[in-house]
């Protein structure tokens, strides 16, 4: 039981860290640029496909990963330049529609290029084993690596936001857009940068996940919705909120799926418990979100604006 708890706890954290990578970009794009981007999940998918494609070319996943990240960044920059910058002075409704259209295009584009079947990628030898973490319990090295990489990015983001001039601009931009332009910053370049970075982080998350879940069309949709839940819970525009909420959602979702039925079994018959558990588990995070919003409509860490 303890082993299962630790195992699922680690799974939950790893899932949370992954959500954070995607959510960080989305929340910054909204906080700084006031743009709601439904194509953000598709950028996660693009990252996954890029990693799969480059791994195929290079014959090595790590090399594929290293190649995928800058291309994901470039992809984001091009997207901003082509479409997103036309949305800055548009209503949220227009933004929703345009990025929704983009998402349809990207999902379909991927289908045209790579087909509908999932593409899987093998891990290099060095990362494919597992190591002992607690007594007899072993955990895959690669999943620990994802966890580590995610935490590393979170730390890097924290440092950038609180210790650099760029970070100061971002914080100012999230709470007071007029001030940033008053500071003499080229707002267009800042926006381009933020959007590119967001795309890169989402792409990085997708690329890292390829060996675990393989790349397939529409894989970004689920992630996008979960990411929405994360940034709504955390408070839109808040990186810290996104981090806390991502881990919360990752843990609640993972633990709920494995322990929900077990806990319910003490309340009802086994058959009933597993059926109820299966029904409730995927809804848990939405219930969590509803509960948090009922108390704090602007999320856990509301950004003043």
């Amino acid at each position, binding site marked *: 039981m303890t082993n299962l708890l630790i195992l699922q706890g680690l799974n939950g954290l790893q899932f949370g860290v992954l959500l954070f990578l995607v959510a960080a970009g989305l929340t910054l794009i*909204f906080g700084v640029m006031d743009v*709601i981007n*439904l194509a953000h999940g598709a950028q996660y998918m693009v990252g996954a496909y890029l990693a799969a494609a480059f791994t195929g070319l290079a014959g090595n996943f790590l090399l594929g990963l290293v190649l995928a990240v800058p291309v994901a960044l470039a992809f984001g920059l091009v997207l901003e330049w082509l*479409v997103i910058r*036309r949305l800055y002075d548009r209503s*949220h*409704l*227009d933004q*929703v*529609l*345009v990025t*929704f*259209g*983009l*998402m*349809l*295009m990207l*999902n*379909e*584009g991927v*289908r*045209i290029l790579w087909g509908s079947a999932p593409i899987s990628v093998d891990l290099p030898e060095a990362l494919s084993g597992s190591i002992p973490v607690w007594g007899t319990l072993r955990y895959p090295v690669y999943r620990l690596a994802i966890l580590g990489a995610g935490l590393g990015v979170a730390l890097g983001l924290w440092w950038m936001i609180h210790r650099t001039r760029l970070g100061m601009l971002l914080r100012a931009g999230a709470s007071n857009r007029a001030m940033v332009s008053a500071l003499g910053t080229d707002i267009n370049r800042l926006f381009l940068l933020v959007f590119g970075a967001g795309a890169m982080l989402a792409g990085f998350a997708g690329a890292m996940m390829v060996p675990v879940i393989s790349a397939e069309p529409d894989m970004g*949709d689920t992630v996008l*919705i979960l990411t*929405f*839940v994360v*940034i*709504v819970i955390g408070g*839109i525009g808040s990186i810290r909120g996104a981090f806390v909420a991502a881990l919360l959602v990752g843990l609640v979702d993972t633990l709920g799926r494995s322990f929900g039925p077990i806990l319910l079994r003490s309340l009802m018959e086994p058959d009933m418990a597993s*059926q109820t558990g*299966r*029904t409730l588990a*995927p*809804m848990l995070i*939405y*219930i969590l*979100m*509803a509960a948090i*919003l*009922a108390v704090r*409509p*602007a999320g856990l860490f509301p950004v003043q604006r």
Partner: protein
Amino acid sequence: MRLSDRAMLVTFAVLLPMPALFSAMGEPFLTVVLTRALIFAIAALSLDLILGFGAMVSFGHAAYLGIGAYAAGILAANGVTGLEVQLPVALAAAGAFALVTGAISLRTRGVHFIMITLAFGQMAYFLMSSLSAYGGDDGMALAGRSTLFGADPFGSSLRFFYVTLALLAGIWALLRAVTRSRFGRVLTGTRENETRMQAIGFSPFGYRLTAYAISGMIASVAGVLLANHAAFVSPSYMGWARSGEMIAMVVLGGMGTLTGPVLGAIAFILSEEALARLTTHWRLPFGAAVVLAVLFTRGGLLGALRGRR
């Protein structure tokens, strides 16, 4: 008469003889396609009440379509095919879901509202996906066509078409009255300027929530029709892409006009159908069309008809 009303009457007049025309052309299947478009026109109309008149951008509207479809599907699976039972159950379920989720969502504004309605829509989606007794992820075939006091309103594609058209006309007239009533004026006022409405003594919440519930209930009627049309019920009716498509129908048709969403839905479903015949990858040109239409036109189809804005 306003332009919007005139355009609507013309639309109805054009729709009325379509089945005869299609069978004369030797393409009776087109009647079935057009019926599907009319079902979505009802759904788009319902969304327009909150989106166009109340400025509530709900991204979870497909959930109500699904609730209606599952009300028909689950009841039929249990031997209850009468619309006299199915419709009230669908309306009650949709109304209840709208009141509960709306009460939470409407505490928020703007992007928060968009994302929360989206999340609640997904919640409904997962709920239905987990109902293994009713097909789970895969959905289930409708156990029997809906009846009305023993009659068979969906028995032929012709009858189905005219029943749907009549329902659409009735709902259009109902919403036309609602949007011009006291209630409708308050709703429009909160869309224009919430603070001003509070300053003259209206608390917007109750009006918004009521509109939200009415809208969801009407969408559930479309859901009951959709289940019969496809003879199938599946969680995919409630997916978020559906919700996005419904927003596109309303906005590209011309929101806040009642006629616009009807035209938008018909144009949307027909072009979806046409593109799907040309290529399996129809979503690519389709997405591109949505992007371009929003970026380069304003006011929707109806706005274009007006030749201004």
